[in-house]
Every structure is written in C-alpha cells, then in structure tokens.
C-alpha cells in the first residue's frame, strides 16, 4: 500500500508503495513484474538507501531456519532482527560476531550495509562472518553465494545497499560467550592526541570506541571518553549475576512518543549533555561489569530517540580516513567544532584492515555525528565531503542522504567494478533506491 516512509534520520520522507512477503514464490512474482523497487528492513539506516518508489518490506520474512548450538551457526531469513536473534542465542552462550550500535536492524540490512561494530579492528565487519546467503536477483533467480561461490555477487551484496537483489536468507557464524556481561573500562582523554594514543594502547581489547566532545577548542580539542570492553568471564561477575550468567535482568524501555521541537538540541544542550556525560567520569580510569545491552546499545534504551531532532529530521555524518591521514580527522573535526552545528553524539573508532569491494570500513579513523537539518547544512556538509575526499576518505552509505555523485565515485576505489556487477545481476536497474539514483549506482 501507499505509505509515507522515512528512515531513522526522518529525512527524506517519501511516498512509497510498500509490499510485504512471507513466501519466496510470491516475492519472486513481484520482483519479476516490477521496477524501481528496493528491499527494506527495519528502517534503521539513516538516509535514503532503502527508500524507493516500490518498497519490499522484509519484516515478515522473519523465520529462523536453524541454530546449531554446538558450533554457533545461525541460519535465518533476512527479515529477522538482531534483537530477536540475541534473545535466542545469548541464553545458549553465543553472541553476534559483529553488531552495530542498535539491535533493531534486520540481518538483511546488516549485510546490505556490511555493518561494523566496536570490534572491527579485531573481528572485521559482518561480511567476514557470513557462511553463505541467498540473493533473489532481478531475473527472479535465487542465487546462493559466499566468499567461495558466486563471489562477485557475494562481494557486491555485502555493503551493496540492496542493489544486487533481495537478500532472502543469511547463514552466519556466532561468537562464543560465557556470560551476558561485559567487563568495561572507561578512560578519560583530555584531547584528541590522547584518545588516539589510548586507542593504540588498548587495541588488544576486543571492543573499543570513544565518545568525543566535538565542540571543545584549544587544549581540550577532541576531549573524549574511550570505552573498551571484553566479554566477562563467570569469575568476574558478582554472586547474583553468577547464578544466571547468561540471563540479563529485566528492564523497562522509555519511548519518545512524539517529535520534540528541534531547538531542544541547540548548542547549549549539546554542551550540557557533553558535560553531564563527562562529569560522570570522575576518575581517569573506571572499571565495571555491565550487561551487554547498555554496552552495545545505549541508545536502544530510549526507543525513537531520533524524534529528539524534531520533525525536520537529521543527517548522521560518518566518514573514515586512513591512519596516515590523521590530519584529515583533525581538519574535519576543527570545521565541525568551529561551526557548532554538530550533535552530542559523536563517536570515534579505529577500524582495522578490511578487504572488500564496496563496504565502508577501511583501516583508519571513523567519526560519526548527527546534524539536525537546518538551512545551510547541506552546503556545509558538501564542504566537509571535499575535505574527506582530499584526505582519501569516504562516507558510509547507510548514513548518507545527501552526498553528491562525484564524491561517491571519487572516494570508493571499486565503484566502477561494483556498478558492473550490479548491472549483471540487476538487469535494467530494476532494483533502485533514491540513493542509487542520486549517486548513479545502477546506470
């Protein structure tokens, strides 16, 4: 049916004809009969990647097909969300091999965005854990692909934003855990130099990321809190936790029921939030054992936090530059800091090496932050894009809602090869999103 659809940034919002499927033959019939269609999961990418004239909702394509509890292998239909998987696997002593900062995404979305987590420098992105998957291509053929069969389709589908076809099934490996808890260490860093040094010093930790206060200037420029963690062992838990080490205490969720006016997030509140967050950290180094949920998904505790940015919505800006181009990180952060338009949510992370065709991660520094939509924002972001490009970096397509075509084509070294493979499986560009049109990915 015709619906108004938007993704997590609430920008852009478009009218789309959305259809849901539970059976592969129905889906196939639809795919071979339509054009301008794009598969869609839980709408947690930020921009326009899963918006199109026709949307194929995969949320009801959500059956878990098998779970090998001995070897930690999960085989699911692509519409299953990570939170549903966690509910099943954690009590059996398994965890997601890679998880982004929200568990409310589908497995299909995780593949299409080739999501990364706090463990990228150790475990790589989601694609590295896929055993095999099925992709329903434009011809109506379902192709099982992996790193060793139909490799071209496999690599163009991981991070390929749904342009090779509809991901229908994914089989992937899990990570063994002994408890549902994380042994976390928080470290204060007084500026960017220090946090970068700390990242290096703590790189043997499986999980690491930093909250960065991007509005500070002078000596405090880039002051941050580095958060590192490991899955806790049973011995590290307290007596109460040890009784059921794989079970989390029940808790309630808050929901933002409506859009807040966007002035709520002006420079003042941004600063106040940063201070609050900072003040909690009264010691230089703090250790604690916490449930996995607040460690991996702090914002999931507030459902619909995106409404805090008001009706106009927001853009999340995430880029990566290589380790050698630290100056690029400094230059961009400087521009963001000077402008004062950025959000309280600025996340810094060091990626490890990754060889892939079109996925976002590459070895280097990645920074992500929100910008509420306002007059002049896109012009400003265009300027930032130029700096990212100048330093050999690139932007994350799952966050993107506005990048210019030439920025994409000049920043992703395999863009041409990717487009060739897409053309091969997506004849006549029948899978097409607003993003792929804007960036001319299916031409």
């Amino acid at each position, binding site marked *: *049916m*015709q619906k108004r659809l938007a993704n997590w940034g609430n920008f852009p919002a478009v009218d789309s004809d*959305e*259809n*849901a*499927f*539970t*059976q592969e*033959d129905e889906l196939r019939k639809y795919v071979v009969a339509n054009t301008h269609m794009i598969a869609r999961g839980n709408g947690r990418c930020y921009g326009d990647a899963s918006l199109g004239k026709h949307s194929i909702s995969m949320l*009801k394509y*959500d*059956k*878990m*097909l*098998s*779970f090998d509890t001995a070897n930690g292998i999960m085989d699911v*239909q692509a519409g299953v969300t990570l939170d*549903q998987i966690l509910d*099943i696997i954690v009590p059996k002593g398994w965890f997601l091999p890679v998880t982004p900062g929200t568990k409310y995404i589908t497995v299909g979305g995780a593949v299409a965005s080739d999501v990364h987590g706090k463990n990228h420098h150790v475990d790589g992105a989601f694609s590295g854990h896929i055993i095999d998957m099925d992709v329903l291509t434009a011809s109506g053929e379902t192709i099982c692909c992996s790193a060793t069969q139909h490799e071209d389709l496999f690599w163009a589908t991981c991070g390929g934003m749904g342009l090779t076809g509809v991901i229908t099934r994914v089989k992937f490996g899990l990570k063994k855990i002994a408890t549902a808890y994380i042994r976390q260490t928080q470290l204060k860093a007084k500026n960017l130099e220090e946090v970068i040094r700390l990242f290096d010093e703590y790189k043997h930790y499986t999980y690491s990321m930093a909250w960065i206060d991007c509005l500070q200037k002078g000596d405090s420029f880039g002051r941050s809190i580095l958060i590192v963690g490991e899955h806790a062992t049973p011995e590290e838990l307290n007596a109460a936790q040890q009784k059921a080490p794989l079970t989390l205490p029940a808790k309630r969720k808050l929901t933002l029921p409506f859009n807040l006016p966007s002035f709520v997030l002006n420079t003042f509140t941004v600063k106040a939030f940063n201070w609050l967050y900072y003040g909690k950290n009264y010691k230089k180094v703090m250790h604690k054992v916490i449930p996995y949920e607040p460690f991996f998904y702090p914002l999931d505790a507030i459902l619909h936090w995106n409404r805090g940015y008001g009706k106009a919505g927001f853009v999340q800006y995430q880029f990566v530059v290589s380790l050698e181009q630290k100056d690029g990180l400094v230059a961009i952060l400087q521009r963001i800091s000077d402008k004062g338009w950025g959000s309280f949510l600025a996340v810094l992370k060091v990626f490890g090496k990754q060889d892939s065709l079109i996925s976002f991660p590459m070895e280097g520094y990645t920074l992500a932050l929100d910008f509420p939509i306002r007059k002049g924002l896109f012009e400003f972001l265009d300027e930032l894009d130029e700096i990212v490009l100048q330093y050999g970096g690139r932007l994350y397509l799952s966050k993107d809602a506005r990048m210019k075509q030439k920025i994409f084509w000049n920043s992703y070294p395999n863009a041409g090869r990717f487009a060739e493979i897409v053309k091969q499986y997506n004849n006549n560009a029948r899978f097409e999103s607003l993003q792929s049109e804007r960036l001319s990915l299916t031409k």
Partner: protein
Amino acid sequence: MSTLLILGAGSDMAVAIARKFASEKYDIQLAGRNTAALIPQQQDLQVRFGVKATTHMFDAAHFASHTAFYAGLPVPPDITVCVFGYLGDQEKAQQNWQEAATIINSNYTGAVSILNIVAESYEARKQGTIVGISSVAGERGRQSNYIYGSAKAGFTAYLSGLRNRLFRSGVHVMSVQPGFVNTRMTQHLTLPPLLTAQPEAVATAVFKAVNRKKNVLYVKWHWRYIMLIIKLIPEGIFKKLSL
C-alpha cells in the same frame, strides 16, 4: 505438554498466534494447503521456542479430506484455532460464482466441515478449546463486502451455537472479532491506526482470552461499540448509506 492446532497456518495472524502459544511452551501443529511453504515457520518455532512443531496438509475447501486429516494428526490437539479465511473481491464475487463460492467455502463451509469433526472429538473427550477467528464484517451486511460478511456472519452464528452445545461437555468455544488487523490480507487498504491491531496484539489477546475462557473477544474494545452502533441503525436508513 499441550498442543495447539492452527488451521490456515500461513497467514500473518496465524504466524503470530503460533508464536505466542509456542512461547508459552505449546507444541504446534501447522495446517495449511501448501505444507512446503510452512516449513520455514515450523523451523522457526523450533529454533525460537524449543517446542515441537509439525506441518500438515489441510485444504478447507476439500471437505471430504477433513476426517482423514484430523485422524492423521500425531496427537489430538488441546486447542484448535481456525484462522483461515479469504477476503476476496466483492465486485468480482457478485458476478463470478467461482469467486463467491471460494469466499463462502473459505470463511464458512470449510470451517463448519472441519470444526464439526473437532467438536465431535472434543465432546467425546469432554475437554478442548476451539477458537474461531471471525470478523466484525459478519455483524451487519454492507454493500462493500457482504459476500465475505455473510460467510463470516454464518461462522459467528455457528460458533455461538457450538459454544452453547459444547458447554455441557466442558469444551470451550471462543469467537474472535479482530476488527482491522495490519496483515498482508489488508496491506492494500488504508486502515485507521486507532482501530487497527497488529497481529502480535491479536495473538496476545487470544492467548489471554483462552486462559480466561472468554466467549467473544473483540481485540480492540472500540469495535464492540462501533458494531453495536452499526447494528442499531434502522434498516430503512442503513440501506441508503454507502458503507
């Protein structure tokens, strides 16, 4: 362990009901026309809830097969939920008997045929619960969907009579009037959000109501009053309305 039989297992509402009962540790028998299509659902119930799930070929319109179908179940189910139904195309059904017959058989005749058999078995065992998913459309015929509505009206009346008959045997019969539900059956319709339930909400309501032995369940309470008002409109006025 208790077992639930779900007739018409492939629909969104059936998926949600099966999951709800499986989460409460019921074994699930999934019955539908296309058993191959039910296999992912069977696997899903086993993976998510660790219960036993089986698939069974069942065609509501093939009345002659119903006795053998029920006798062939691995164990007699403690609860039978009749979910199958077909909205159809009202205008087409007015001219095309095939479409009209499909609507009537899917929503009424087929249900009577199989539930007669289930009822006999439950009455003899002096236990069991039958849940029929009917529709508010059956409460008054309207020009926009009276073929579907009249079949559901028949089904509602059937369930009411069955409840009356089986009460003395300790068998419970519950009629469910879901109102609008956000499913693939209705995905081409624009539904008012306040009056529209999610399939998961229907499933939770059905589970609770079964435990409380409710007779008639309106999933969204508004519907009881909306239909009351609609039923109170005098026929002389009603026939002039375009509903």
